[in-house]
């Protein structure tokens, strides 16, 4: 048996892990507009509920601003409080 034959105990990971990023920092957005519904929808799930930071990758500062903006949009009937098929 050849000496320099490589053996692995576990299978090699082939899919690359994509690093999450805060889109506000990346694109230099400094104000979260509650009137921009299409943008806010990025942070909601199908039911119109806010997605957690764990999934969106937002920084804490902007996650708070997003949640405030979404709440304002809901008050002004731009976004629903509950929905079945939002997207």
């Amino acid at each position, binding site marked *: 048996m050849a000496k320099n034959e490589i053996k692995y105990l576990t299978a090699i990971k082939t899919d690359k892990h994509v690093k999450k990023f805060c889109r506000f920092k990346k694109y230099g957005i400094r*104000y979260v507009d509650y009137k921009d519904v299409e943008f806010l929808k990025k942070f909601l799930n199908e039911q119109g509920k806010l997605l957690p930071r764990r999934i969106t990758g937002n920084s804490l500062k902007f996650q708070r601003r997003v949640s405030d903006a979404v709440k304002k949009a809901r008050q*002004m009937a731009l976004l629903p409080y509950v929905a079945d098929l939002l997207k």
Partner: protein
Amino acid sequence: MNNYELMVIFTPVLSEDEFKAAQKKFTALVTEAGGSIIHENPWGLKSLAYPIQKKTTGLYWVLEYTAPSDFNEKLKIQLLRDENVLRHLCTKLDKFAVEYNAKKNSGVKTGTEKAVEAQ
């Protein structure tokens, strides 16, 4: 003087002239109090995300203005007394918001477009 933004939903039953008159009424209040109008944007008839007072549509109107800090309390009373107003929201704008709105009004890209496309 502070920067504010007011969004009002009027009842959809208003005619074109009544809608204009209602807008005029509130802009007059701002100027009387010593404030100034920066930008006015009537969105017009839009369907609501959920019914308010059994209405499924509303006339949206967005107003940006500067006013002294005690003005908003007076404005709120007027808005609540007006039965044409379904709902209103007054937001204080910080320097980033003012910059954002100025860009948006002049038609320059605000930077959110890229973020909307990227998913």
